């Protein structure tokens, strides 16, 4: 990820703001979208990207964010279905090369991964980390 990216971050909650701040700090062009203007308070003072207030499931809002020009779209809203819809539109309609979505429901992972969406499931990731930590303790010599 060394080259300059045009990244659209959908959902500017804790995770979205964190991603937007980090990508902006690394010198990438960032657009953050959220349906609540107050959410942008989570963006750092040095964040140099754009903010768009609107529903990302509306095509008009994604067009305003110039998603057709984006190298990367990450959808991080609280709603799985919003993230999956945005990710699919970014991939299939706007042909964005790299598209990722946060999905809480582990049952969704397989179905959408088969459709070519890069899915990050925090529920499963956290479960794996807990289980790995337990396994390490069990495996360690007493």
């Amino acid at each position, binding site marked *: 990820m060394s080259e300059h990216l045009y990244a659209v971050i959908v959902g500017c909650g804790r995770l979205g703001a964190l991603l937007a701040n980090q990508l902006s700090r690394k010198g990438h062009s960032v657009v953050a979208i959220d349906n609540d203007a107050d959410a942008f308070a989570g963006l750092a003072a040095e964040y140099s990207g754009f903010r768009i207030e609107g529903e990302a499931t*509306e095509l008009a809002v994604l067009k305003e964010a110039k998603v057709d020009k984006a190298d990367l779209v990450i959808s991080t809203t609280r709603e799985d*279905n*919003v993230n999956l819809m945005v990710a699919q539109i970014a991939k299939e309609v706007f042909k964005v090369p790299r598209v990722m979505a946060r999905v809480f429901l582990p049952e*969704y992972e397989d*179905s959408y991964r088969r459709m070519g969406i890069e899915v990050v499931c925090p529920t499963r990731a956290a479960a794996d980390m807990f289980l790995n930590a337990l396994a390490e303790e069990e495996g360690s010599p007493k």
Partner: protein
Amino acid sequence: MNILIVGGGKPVYFLCRTFLAKGHEVTIINRDHDECIQLARRLNATIVHGDGSDPVILEEAGAHAAGAVLAVTPNDQDNLAVCQIAQLRFDTPRAVALANDPDNEEVFKKLGVSAFSTTRIITSLIEQRTLLDDVINLIPAGEGKVNITEIALTEESPVSGNALRDLALPHGCLVAVVLRNGDAVVPDGSTELRAGDHIVVITLPGNHGPALRAITGETA
């Protein structure tokens, strides 16, 4: 057929009632507990309380056996997810999503889900009706590629008193049915149109306007 509807509000209630009256079996998935109780009291349908895009709830609602899944919630993202999960996980033969945002009708089709937009349908109905007083009914078919229009003929209609074969109708316009005195007749070239007839005309969008003008004489 087993029809699975995801959504709520008056549209779902009346949809369900209509399907039941036609002899279908209906299951409704609704997120609101109180509404579920109301629906269960008023409809002879199976009501499942929960999130219709959750595979576990869909399974509980019998998605495997559903002949059709209809997602009509006010949230497009949920309607898309319901239909995709139904198709991917339960091999539902037919899943249809409501596109609240008319732009999403096209988007959903690109994502492999058939969709309809009530906004677009109502807009087109209103446009057609206000455009021409004599147009009684207009149904888009073939995903909008064909229009089926019912037109009332009056004394002023330029086609009244003429046989079909003598009409100068645009190419690709078919008078499919003539309704007269309560009878529906499929006409041939010799059929003469009269004031008081209702005719059902099939047109393509490109010649819809010219065809209607030729039949009604209105220039609007």
